[in-house]
């Protein structure tokens, strides 16, 4: 393979990995728990900024043309992990405010408003994360260790794949456990879950923070690869792209969501890159957004359960399991499944 092809293929693979991770995080909140997180992109941004400032060094570096806080040079992988921590703390704070007392469509509104505030704050505070122009020249991790350009690209692909695996096992550990059942119960029938003794507020908060941490890590990895990050790259509509990916793939299904992440943000953006330029500047971008919007609407109309629907989980009645009808459920179970089974419709 020529070097250009390798560069292109590896870049695509890294993007795919980052999008898959982010979509798994969003799916945990939105697909599994039913939280309308229209501010998802700000947690990815928080992780990206944290990783950026922790690798850039003090802001007098590079001639001091950028202004930001907390600049230092932490060794790889600490900045990325810290990105996850900061995004997690941010989602804890936001979750504490929004998830408890608000009606669900109010939550959607507040999230949207928060996403816009976050962009405005980052744009207008020039000395916080370098304002409108954003961070640039962020050093790539271990780039001084690997001299070959293509070798470095492949190394980054391997690192992203490893991170994906870790995130997958983390998400899978939650969704296939009794905890995941409790989260789905909160999504499908909040009051039934509460009546069964589930702490709905803390389950929601858990899912929100877990998704936030994943978003932060995905942002950290992305920024380490692309080496720049600015408010223009995380406008609130970017969340719609990820939401569309989750819906297209099949919300609640980790495999489906992975497929959706590869189809919508990755494949779709790459196909349109090769369209011949036509019309006035910005026209292709506009069509791209129109198609993204139509895609999510079309799927919600024709196939709301997505390409790979969430598995319908069937449980034998307690009698067949040899447990008395009034007896306790199996060891470690998070409680019986509520009567309503999702029919895959949003």
């Amino acid at each position: 393979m020529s070097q250009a092809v390798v560069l292109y293929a590896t870049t695509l693979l890294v993007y795919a990995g980052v999008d898959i991770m982010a979509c798994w995080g969003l799916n945990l909140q939105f697909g599994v728990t039913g939280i309308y997180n229209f501010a998802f992109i700000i947690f990815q941004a928080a992780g990206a900024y944290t990783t950026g400032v922790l690798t850039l060094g003090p802001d007098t570096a590079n001639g001091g043309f950028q202004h930001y806080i907390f600049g230092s040079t932490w060794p790889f992988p600490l900045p990325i992990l810290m990105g996850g921590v900061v995004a997690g703390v941010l989602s804890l704070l936001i979750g504490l405010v929004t998830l408890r007392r608000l009606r669900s469509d109010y939550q959607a509104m507040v999230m949207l408003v928060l996403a816009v505030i976050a962009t405005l704050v980052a744009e207008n505070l020039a000395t916080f994360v370098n304002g409108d122009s954003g961070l640039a020249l962020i050093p790539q991790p271990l780039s001084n260790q690997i001299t070959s350009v293509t070798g470095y690209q492949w190394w980054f692909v391997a690192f992203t794949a490893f991170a994906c695996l870790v995130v997958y096992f983390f998400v899978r550990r939650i969704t296939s456990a009794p905890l995941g059942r409790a989260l789905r119960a909160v999504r499908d029938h909040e009051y039934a879950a509460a009546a069964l003794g589930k702490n709905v507020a803390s389950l929601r908060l858990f899912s929100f923070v877990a998704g936030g941490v994943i978003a932060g890590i995905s942002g950290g990895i992305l920024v380490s690869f692309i080496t720049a990050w600015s408010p223009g790259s995380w406008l609130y509509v970017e969340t719609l792209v990820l939401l569309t990916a989750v819906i297209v793939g099949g919300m609640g299904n980790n495999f489906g969501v992975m497929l959706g992440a590869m189809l919508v943000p990755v494949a779709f953006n790459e196909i349109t890159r090769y369209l011949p330029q036509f019309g006035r500047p910005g026209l292709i971008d506009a069509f791209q957004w129109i198609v993204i919007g139509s895609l999510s609407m079309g799927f919600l109309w024709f196939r709301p359960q997505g390409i790979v629907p969430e598995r319908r989980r069937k449980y034998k009645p307690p009698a067949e399991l040899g447990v008395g009808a009034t007896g306790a459920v199996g060891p470690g179970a998070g409680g019986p499944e509520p009567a309503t089974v999702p029919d895959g419709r949003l």
Partner: protein
Amino acid sequence: MFHLVFASTLVESVGFGLVTASILAIAAVGFTLQFGVSNMLNLAYGDIMTAAAFGAYEVNKAGAPLWVSFIAGMATGAVTSVLLHRYIYRPFVRRGTQLVGLVIVALSAAVIIQNALLAGFGATFFTLKLPHTSTVHVAGATLTVLQLVIIGIAVAAMLAVDAMLRRTRLGKAMRATSGNPALARACGINTNRVVDTAWLIAGGLCGLAGVLLVLNTASFESTTGSDFLVITIAAAMLGGVGQAYGAMIGAVVLGVVTEVAAAYTRSSFKEVIAFAVLVIIVLIRPQGMFGQPVTALTMNKEVVN
């Protein structure tokens, strides 16, 4: 001396605040009326404002007088709003799409309308041609005649909405549908028609707000309306969503606070301060200033189509 400067800045900024508040009040009342009656979170509202501005722009470019542009803008807003409800939102509601899905449908509709306008008109700034206006001094503040007209139109629109809600059968039917749709239907109210009318009126107000907004800011582009949506939602939430009078007061509070804040800090911070006000309100009183407390009964209202 310092106190004098301070005071005159305050009066000036309150004057500008009232202009912003006027536009915001029209937008927020339209938003909250439609949301209160139908429970559908219409995130495309801001982009309908932009569509209305473009409608007014086309008529204005053809050389029609300003009041014709106003009517064209309102008509564009009303028609877009009704079409959106009839042919997109209502079919989804009838198909049984739940709330999460509907919010995403609305966000998709917003993105589609905005980018269709971008594709159709291009990524440049547009300006409405205006007759030359002079400035007037009112109680220490300097405002243009145009700004006074904006305030006047807003006051007239608010009085009209008030009269409609309180004195007409339609207004009563709207309030009944907003309070309890099932009971309203049982009382013989044609809730379908009420909801359709609510979308029509909300669209008209939205269009009016859109035209006033681009008159006040002098130039606009395809994202102008969606940029304004967030502060509209903030004003509506401040007053308690679904509460028309709450939205008016929320708009005045936000409009004045943002302009006064902009006078004493950097102007780019005014939205940040407005949203900070909103977040504090959400923390202390999630239902807004005039909303009903959230209970199990009001928690998950169905969308009325």
